[in-house]
């Protein structure tokens, strides 16, 4: 693979990230039609999506695969920006910081989305993730409270995580992508 081709492949990563985000929004909207963010119903509703809803298994699978692929694409994009020393060009610092911030948003998407099925594993991971986040200096307690929706993982957590995953984080990601597009138009983003 020539160096120029490799470079053009890496330059295509933001476009791929936008396409994957589009797939996530579309499949997420379809999943939200049948998902119930309630501790008593969440697990059963995910089971219904996977087994009873027409092509629900495929929509759910696409959502999960696209989410993990998006995280990998964002990671590769950051590596490209780093090793190409892209932040040295005019406006490159803003593009770098925006990319890192978007990668944090993608991480939050993964962590909140993983808890939504509300099975035993998801519950256990939510408890451990909240405990781990709580140990972060300065912001840890606040972040853990935002994640849990209260002092401990419980009924309020699922509602909180569903709201974060389906309402707040998509808008944050959308705003980030719009800003990245604007930087691109001004010839400052990769």
């Amino acid at each position, binding site marked *: 693979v020539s160096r120029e081709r490799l470079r053009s492949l890496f330059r295509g990563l933001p476009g791929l990230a936008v396409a994957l985000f589009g797939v996530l929004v579309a499949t997420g909207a379809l999943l939200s039609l049948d998902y119930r963010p309630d501790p008593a119903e969440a697990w059963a509703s995910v089971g219904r999506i996977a087994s009873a809803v027409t092509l629900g298994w495929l929509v759910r699978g696409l959502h999960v695969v696209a989410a993990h692929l998006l995280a990998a694409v964002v990671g590769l994009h950051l590596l490209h920006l780093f090793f190409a020393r892209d932040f040295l060009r005019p406006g490159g610092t803003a593009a770098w910081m925006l990319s890192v911030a978007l990668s944090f948003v993608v991480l939050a998407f993964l962590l909140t989305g993983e808890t939504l099925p509300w099975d035993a594993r998801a*519950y256990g991971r939510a408890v451990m993730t909240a405990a781990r986040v709580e140990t972060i200096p300065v912001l840890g307690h606040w972040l853990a409270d935002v994640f849990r929706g209260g002092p401990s993982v419980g009924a309020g957590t699922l509602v909180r995580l569903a709201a974060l995953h389906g309402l707040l984080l998509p808008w944050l990601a959308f705003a980030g992508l719009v800003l990245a597009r604007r930087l691109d138009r001004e010839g400052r983003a990769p």
Partner: protein
Amino acid sequence: VILRLRPGATPAEREALLRALAAAEIPWRDEGDLLVLGEGAEASDAVAWAALPAVAAVDPAGSPEPALGEAFLRRAESLCLLLGPLAIAASLLPGRLGPPADPVRMPEDPGTPWPLAAWAALEERAPAALPVPLLVAGFGLGLLLWPLYARRLAERRPGLHAAVGVAALAIGAALGLLGMAR
């Protein structure tokens, strides 16, 4: 105005061109072998741009925009190329759904989400005196602010800059693999 870049142009020559554009306050879009210049670029300056070592040719006319139908077909083709492998992967991966959550009974080892695997491995293996959460928070903040304090390093010692990146990547990957293999 479109600048067609010389295939053998060195990074320094490309950077000199970008600096010249920045000095002239001309916005640009990088298309790999092409630089598409925005407002402010005059066709009358073509001779000056063509004289720069990185530039092979100047095309004042630009490439024609694809027709609406063609653009739609291109997008549809790209979407199919993306959705096809995604659908295959989605159908091959098992949609695991364990027993329902029971707040009274915590599962013994729920595992760690892969983005936090390196953190989990560090917590397990690092000496007790090492403030792991502080390290993790510091890494996140350091990553965000990297261009602000490492600019000089990246400009003057690109080899060392790359070595720092490779070392961080290797440590992160090793810890991540250890965390996931638990």
